[in-house]
């Protein structure tokens, strides 16, 4: 079995390629989202808070 043949066979997954690979794609996408979204949120929160802080300093709220 040459390299490419075994690769093709690997991706065919014995005919169940659709189900196996789709479930792995969904898992990867959802896990990636779960990892990336908090990062973006963290950056946004820090920016908003810093900006809020700066705004507070400027008009020296009591």
């Amino acid at each position, binding site marked *: 079995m040459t390299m490419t043949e075994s690769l093709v066979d*690997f991706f065919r*997954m*014995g*005919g*169940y390629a659709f*189900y*196996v690979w*789709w*479930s*792995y794609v*969904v*898992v990867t996408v*959802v*896990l990636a*989202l*779960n*990892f990336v979204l*908090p*990062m973006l*949120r*963290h950056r946004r*929160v*820090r920016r908003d*808070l*810093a900006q*809020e*802080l*700066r705004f507070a*300093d400027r008009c020296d709220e009591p």
Partner: protein
Amino acid sequence: MWAFLHRFASPPHFYRRAGAIAPWLGWICLGLMAAGLYGGLVVAPPDYQQGESYRIIFVHVPSAWMSMFVYVVMAGASAIALIWRIKLAEVIAIESAPVGASFTFLALVTGSLWGKPMWGTYWVWDARLTSELILLFLYFGVMGLYAAIEDRRTAGRAAGLFAIVGVVNIPIIHYSVEWWHTLHQGPTVTKLSAPSIHVSMLVPLLLMAVSFKLFYVTVLLHRARCGVLERGRNAGWVRSLLARTEPE
């Protein structure tokens, strides 16, 4: 021990410690996941009954385990938050809900994708899948309640209480769904449980399970850092932290 916990629970300490630990956990989780996937997709032999389609268990079963594990952690953290009024526990409980809901959703999707080759339909009212679906509703209940109440503190405590009520109800619901399922058992429904586990299949499964747990902890640490920052917006440590990083 208690002193350490108390120190760790103080938001500024947590913010710094979590920031330090999270990257390491992330890399270890990635390594384990790669090993698990390699073991599961390449090394493990095909199942004599289901052929290659059984390889979905390497994501389905860990997701199902995690969906339950995260709910229990959420309920535990909520109990700690309500009884000892520890703000960090409340943040951990609330930030765990979306991650738990994602794992439940994954368990449902991979379960139905695995069901198609095995039973011919994407959705079968199998006892475990039905329990997962109800668990997803319970997660949405917690998240919905937290989002509906304006005041963050009240919202956190109300959602936490519902998480505790939920965790008490989960075994009852699970038992009644199992009982209901055996009552209306379809004639040829094979058990969704993993086939007799051979060691070459068990090792990747456990690797994936551990990597999912680490993934949860890493994401939770990131989300909790965010939550702690938002909760303590007018606390002193947040001001000094932000002033330091964005000098005027």
